[in-house]
């Protein structure tokens, strides 16, 4: 009988291949082997570094050139304040609000980039994503790209409103996991103004290079949503992208973007 069956070692290899979970690690006494402990610590360290890495707004602006950019800051002055006070991350610093008021005009679209919870992800992938988005605009007028430090998603409302944009597109670093620390998300809000609810936004998440959405595919999806939002004059739960199924997103993670 047992001749037909795989050996336990072969069985565990099959089981390991069925899930990204850290199964069949083995034991040293009651603990996992040191190799597994260090692998976990490295992944956690990378996620922590992504959250706390300094955000180089000037380098991102240089990478985006010749697109014009404006750099602003939220009212959350430092990283520790940012993590504790999502309300401050949704408000513009006073001098930033004044600077944006000077750029006010009639724009179809404003694009905002915030480092969010992954400066690493934004530094690595935001410029390519924004270029892909711009390529999809097809004649729509674009405000100067705003680079916002210490931003929560809803800061885009204040920025879009200050610039006089019909739609604001917020590109932001997502909460890092152990397997992916550099994922980006896009939030689109029609008629941005302070106080918009999360249910009035459309979100495309999991944009990264480890099996996530590519920038080109994310931009194409966003372009469809954008045209529908402009045509129907709304965004959010009433606006659905039926063209293709998006990857499954975990629904329980309280990123508390609003």
């Amino acid at each position: 009988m047992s001749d037909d069956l795989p050996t336990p070692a072969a069985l565990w290899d099959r089981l390991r291949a069925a899930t990204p979970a850290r199964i069949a690690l083995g034991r040293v006494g009651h603990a996992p082997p040191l190799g597994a402990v260090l692998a976990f610590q490295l992944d956690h360290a990378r996620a922590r570094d992504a959250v706390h890495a300094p955000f180089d707004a000037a380098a991102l602006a240089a990478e985006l050139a010749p697109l014009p950019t404006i750099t602003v800051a939220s009212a959350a002055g430092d990283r520790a304040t940012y993590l504790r006070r999502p309300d401050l991350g949704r408000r513009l610093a006073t001098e930033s609000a004044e600077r944006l008021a000077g750029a006010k005009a009639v724009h179809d679209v404003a694009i905002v980039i915030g480092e969010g919870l992954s400066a690493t992800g934004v530094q690595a992938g935001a410029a390519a994503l924004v270029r892909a988005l711009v390529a999809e605009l097809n004649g729509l007028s674009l405000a100067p790209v705003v680079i916002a430090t210490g931003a929560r998603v809803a800061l885009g409302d204040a920025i879009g409103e200050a610039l006089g944009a019909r739609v604001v597109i917020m590109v932001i670093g997502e909460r890092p996991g152990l397997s992916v620390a550099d994922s980006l998300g896009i939030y689109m809000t029609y008629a941005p103004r302070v106080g918009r609810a999360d249910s009035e936004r459309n979100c495309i998440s999991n944009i990264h290079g480890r099996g996530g959405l590519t920038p080109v595919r994310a931009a194409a999806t966003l372009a469809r949503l954008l045209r529908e939002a402009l045509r129907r004059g709304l965004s959010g739960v009433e606006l659905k992208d039926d063209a293709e199924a998006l990857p499954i997103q975990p629904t329980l993670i309280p990123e508390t973007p609003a």
Partner: protein
Amino acid sequence: MGGAYHCDFGGERHRFGSLAHVMACATPTRSGDALAGLAADSAAQRVAARAVLADLPLRHFLDVALVPYESDEVTRLIIDSHDAIAFAPLSAMTVGDLRDWLLRPETDSVALAQVAPGLIPEMVAAVSKLMRNQDLIIVAQKVRVVTAFRNTIGLAGRLSTRLQPNHPADDPRGIAAAVLDGLIHGVGDAVIGINPATDSVPGALRLIAMLDDLRERYAIPTQTCVLTHVTNSLEIIARGAPVDLVFQSIAGSEAANRGFGIDLAVLRAAHDAALSLGRGTVGQNVMYFETGQGAALSADAHHGIDQQTMEARAYGVARAFDPLLVNTVVGFIGPEYLYDGKEIIRAALEDHFCGKLLGLPMGCDACYTNHAEADQDDMDTLMTLLTVAGCSFLICVPGNDDVMLSYQSLSYHDALALRAMLGVRAAPEFEGWLDAMGLIAPDGSIRALADGAAGLVHRLNGTGIAA
């Protein structure tokens, strides 16, 4: 006017405008209360608030509703179900007196069980604010809450575990692999419970059938659960699927529960539906609830009340439904509510204490996110403290890493470590099964399976898992 809440403390007069203000200011530091604008202005004010709280009669919490009775069904549930006879021995006490009474050695598990129906969540939250971590542990350790379905949870000297085999795409083989790995580490007697990546009725039906088949095939004396929304569970039961436990996240106000898409009526309907299936073999506790500090605030449904008091009110909801399991998902909500390891550890001990004192089978998901100031060392501390406190069950995932929800919890190995450090054992029925599978060593510990000597793996071999 002086106001009802004031004290002269350390040569300074402190005034508090309301009971809610006293409660919030008396709470140990946490980021969520600061975010809500409710935290004490200074460390000295925090201590003064505790002094005011200590002198308040317990009866005061029956007279002054923190969340209005008229507009909140959770308050109505708490007040209308209060047991005045059970409360009688405590009725002349202040909050400070209650703290002292709880700490007395002669206040034993029988006495604590007798007063539980006489305590309301606000009283329990109040007294916890006067207690140090060691007080929360010593008192919780004395409480015994025993529940049962296919095994018995909460007996003295036992620690149960939830096996959480989540998969980012709900892949049945990936989930089965994580279940098998958990079982050979002796994990899974509280429940084998999946958080589905996609919250839909067809998806949940598929996973429920798969878990039930696995449990039946190996005659495992435990219960399974797919943690889908309660309205999905009602639909799934109506379709005749084998539902052991009905799960739901709950919070401490009617408005916060509405944010979860539930009310007390739908919980009652689900409780009745699950009971009607009669699937329990040694007991009929059929509900599983998760909670966590900050849930009400994040839904803007906290009524100006501190997050720890709102959390205790969620236990007022839970106890109306005789649950098998309740756990706080303490660190999942993030640093906006619990900033670091110190705040997470304190909150977990408060939640465990408050739940137990109110008569709940309290467990914990000792966990943290990557943007919190916490790591696995903090979880080692927390799991040890909780186990010493007699925590009913802990959640365990493979290698501390939940690959679906992207946060870190305890691991299968952590459960082994707790059993070795503190001598706690699995639920007796489940332990008997582990023994029959050859997984219990002569000293009672969980046997390590070397590759060549895997009786259980051979038994499981050639089944659906290995195909």
